[in-house]
């Protein structure tokens, strides 16, 4: 079974072998270390000169890579921990993401910035966060997040090889070691893969990105729509199974891989049927991805949305201590509780 880490690593390998314009910059990305989480392992050996170990300069690296992209190459930046994206916020928001539109579509920025988010490893307040919410809604910036379903490596390699606009690619530390569930062969869930609608011309994200629909094999029609991304898909799966077998509550999981620009087609289709929508995320619950999802559902469905809920981390820093961290982050129990509450 392939893990998410292996899949991402081969996605990078594929991108490097397919297109000589692909470069990678990041801290400690060279072999034998191969990056703090090993996603780049083997790359610098196979493609010397195209993998560049950088100083600890997150803003500088992203700015440099934006310049590299403006001149027709396809740089990938690894930010060692997603927590440090804050240092590159200006380069992402006021530079890379703006160039295309403010230069009247006369320039493109095929840049991918990848980074791992997430807690549950006790790394504490500055190394455990899920910060993509602070970048959602940046005009010109596409945000993708693979989960352990389908083909994370393909999501990455296509962003690198076929994207023309900046992409923020959100990985998750715990996801890395998960085995990937293949839609065709998953033994627990019936998995349907559909494509998110492409945003309008002129808006980033004009590449197919999959949305996965998961239902427990052989279950009756779902009564709740659970939408989530990244590592939360795994927790949702566990909750869905237990809800089905322990409570006879049947849910459909809708797992997009593109967070922004948001496309809620599949979520709304499902929520129209169930009338009940829960948005899950690992980031702090306020002002996150789930807020946009629920808002769009409320706007689109009106009173047909019988119940809406969100679950995310508590609005607190992520503590280092295991028992405290477990209280702050969303878990299977809480997914089950919130689901039971609204049926």
């Amino acid at each position: 079974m392939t893990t998410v880490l292996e899949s991402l690593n081969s996605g990078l390998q594929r991108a490097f072998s397919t297109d000589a314009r692909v470069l990678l910059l990041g801290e400690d990305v060279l072999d034998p270390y191969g990056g703090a989480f090993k996603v780049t392992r083997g790359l610098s050996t196979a493609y010397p000169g195209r993998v560049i170990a950088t100083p600890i300069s997150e803003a500088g690296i992203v700015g440099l890579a934006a310049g590299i992209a403006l001149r027709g190459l396809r740089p990938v930046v690894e930010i060692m921990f997603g927590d440090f994206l804050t240092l590159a916020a200006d380069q992402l928001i006021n530079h890379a993401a703006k160039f295309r539109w403010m230069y009247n579509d006369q320039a493109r920025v095929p840049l991918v910035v990848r980074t791992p988010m997430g807690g549950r490893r006790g790394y504490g307040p500055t190394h455990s966060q899920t910060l993509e919410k602070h970048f959602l809604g940046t005009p010109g910036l596409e945000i993708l997040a693979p989960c352990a379903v389908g083909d994370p490596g393909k999501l990455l390699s296509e962003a690198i090889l076929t994207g023309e606009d900046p992409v923020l690619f959100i990985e998750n530390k715990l996801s890395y070691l998960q085995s990937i569930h293949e839609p065709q062969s998953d033994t627990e869930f019936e998995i349907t893969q559909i494509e998110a609608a492409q945003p309008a011309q002129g808006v980033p994200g004009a590449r197919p990105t999959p949305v996965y629909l998961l239902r427990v094999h052989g279950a009756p029609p779902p009564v709740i729509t659970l939408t989530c991304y990244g590592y939360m898909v795994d927790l949702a799966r566990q909750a869905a199974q237990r809800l089905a077998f322990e409570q006879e509550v049947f849910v459909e999981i809708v797992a997009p891989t593109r967070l922004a620009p948001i496309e809620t087609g599949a979520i709304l289709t499902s929520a129209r049927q169930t009338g009940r929508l829960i948005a899950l995320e690992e980031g702090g619950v306020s002002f996150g991805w789930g807020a946009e999802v629920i808002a769009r559902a409320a706007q689109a469905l009106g009173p047909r949305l019988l119940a809406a809920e969100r679950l995310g981390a508590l609005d607190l820093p992520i503590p280092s201590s295991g028992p405290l961290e477990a209280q702050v982050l969303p878990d299977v129990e809480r997914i089950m509780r919130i689901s039971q509450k609204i049926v």
Partner: protein
Amino acid sequence: MPPTSNDFNEMLYRRLYLIRLFEETVIENFVKGVFYGTTHTCLGQEANAVGVLTGLAAQDIVFSNHRSHGHFLAYGGDPRSLFAELMGKASGVCGGRGGSQHLHWRNFYSNGVQGGVAPVGTGMALAEKFKNSGAAAVVFLGDGTLGEGVLYETLNMAALWQAPVLYVVENNRIAQTTPVELSLAGSIPARFAAFGIPVGELDTSDVTEILPEAQARLSAARNGEPQALILHTCRFGPHSKGDDTRPTEALAEMRCRRDPVTIQASRLEPSARLKIERETQAVIHAAFQAALEDPFPTDLDLSENLK
């Protein structure tokens, strides 16, 4: 053109004068409400733009900042499209989207966030190096912009990876209203040297002094040794429009001693000078009028999911 010929001197004068007239036209007409937003003119600093950019090769890249009109025109940009951009017209450099501080045409770029252009311009230089195109990049910075940390991240990487880039610091000793003494500790050249970047320094408004120094540094940069050039200069006008807090005597003295246009004019035959001025006046006038008459952009083509 041999660098001492009359033709050469006239060519330089034409460029300086074009920028001067452009900027004066901007300041003069701003109050009439024909332009959007704000603007930063380079009155007094024209020799930097012309001196540095006259020696540029076609494939070379320029990344400029908020005070970019002179750089754009010295690069060869069209005055009409720049007027039009300031007026928010469809014919503007960026169709009116960018305005004064956000330009892109051919290999010329600018952005209005201080300091952030440094890594981007340096990344461009590195890309060209990777492509073996032989192109170099020029990044313009102000003295005040030396306050931004990302610049130092960039200098480090430029030196480590030998980016073909020339950093030009236009030190007009002021940032908006803040004198350099209040914003800058230590020494400007030392800030580049500390990262292993060779630095030149000139205190002149004479374009013929800037040009060869810039040329030499640009070719050193092109050979993979990033360079810095500190140009001590004088801002004659306000920071943007009417926001000058400096004493008028100091300004007058500056204008008298350090006017790049006057300095270069003295090298021309009066008749040649007059001819250039007349022709340039006509160019600027026509450009301004044409831009004035250009249409505004039509409605944005917006898809449903943006609404």
